[in-house]
């Protein structure tokens, strides 16, 4: 009867401990998703095409080494950039870019003020971001973010009007289920409000 000298350790709860560890690792090892502002750099070409751009079609954003901002020679805050950019892009004061030899047409989807002294058409509106070499990267990203936000907002608005869904929702749907009809819509919105951002040589 009393043969047992050392009682065996109950291993029944080992599974629980292991499960606990397993869940801990499952939860903690979720990798930090790498996200950011996506940009496509312009290709380098040997031939510099001579393009004449009217001054009113360019929104000049200049930022100096003290992180101070000038938009069209007026001192503004970063948070103002989005509004100014939207106003500028969506102005629609003139004719659009001629496509396939056809003359450009006025913007029929713009909700802007149609100010003749601002941009002609979203497809012509260029945003120029000139930074100083000493500007901090945080500021630079903030401005890029505001410009991106302006475009996204305009695309969202147009998308809601045309398709009843926001642009973000369309992109989301396309991610989950890429269909041809969605792609057409997204491309259409991108064509209506193309992102034209130029970054001239930084101020030395």
């Amino acid at each position, binding site marked *: 009867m009393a043969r047992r000298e050392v009682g065996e350790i109950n*291993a*029944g709860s*080992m*599974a629980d401990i*292991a*499960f606990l*560890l*397993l869940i801990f*690792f*499952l939860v903690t*090892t979720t*990798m930090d*998703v*790498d*996200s*950011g*502002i*996506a*940009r*496509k*750099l*312009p*290709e*380098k070409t040997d031939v510099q095409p001579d393009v004449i751009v009217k001054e009113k079609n360019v929104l000049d954003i200049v930022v100096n080494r003290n*992180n101070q901002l000038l938009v069209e020679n007026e001192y503004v805050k*970063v*948070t103002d950039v989005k509004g100014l950019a939207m106003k500028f892009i969506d102005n629609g004061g003139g004719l659009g870019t001629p496509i396939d030899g056809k003359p450009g047409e006025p913007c029929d989807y713009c909700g802007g003020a149609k100010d003749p002294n601002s941009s002609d058409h979203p497809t012509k509106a260029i945003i120029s971001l000139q*930074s*100083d*070499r*000493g*500007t*901090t*990267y*945080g*500021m*630079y*990203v*903030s401005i*890029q*973010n*505001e410009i*991106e*936000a302006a475009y*996204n907002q305009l695309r969202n608005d147009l998308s809601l009007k045309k398709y009843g869904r926001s642009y973000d929702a369309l992109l989301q749907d396309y991610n989950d289920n890429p269909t041809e009809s969605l792609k057409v819509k997204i491309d259409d919105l991108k064509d209506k409000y193309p992102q034209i951002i130029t*970054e001239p040589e*930084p101020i030395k």
Partner: protein
Amino acid sequence: MSKFKKGKKGMPAISTASLPDIVFMLLFFFMVSTTMRETDLLIKKPALPVASEVKKLEHKSLVSTIYVGKSKDTRISGDKIQVNDKIIEVKDVPSFIYSERALRKEEEVKFMTTSIKADKEASVGTILDIKEQLRDINALKISFSTSKGTDLSKNYN
């Protein structure tokens, strides 16, 4: 002896003695498979700026990351650029991209993205230099790595 027989005879219980082994196996699998090849940062960990209009980077295997930040040694000023496990100069960026391309299949090269993880205090000059180098070798898809948030005011001042 008869007292041992009083239990009703039915289905014997399934032994759960091997359950810990199975769970441990799973545990080890997850422990091993989720270890990422996290590059050891030789520079100070970049404090990423905050942005609201972020896009997730798709195809993680096609992303090459360039880190920009201050040196760990506080006496050394200026921005340092790190790729993989070494600190490089701006002019070495193309060779890094070439070596990254060599690891991928040819048809995947055009989908490759360069993610720039830079400290918010870094100067734009460095970033623009890197961008210029990337343009030179036609690595045109870039992403400014940021963390998601709406309060942009921490990015500057």
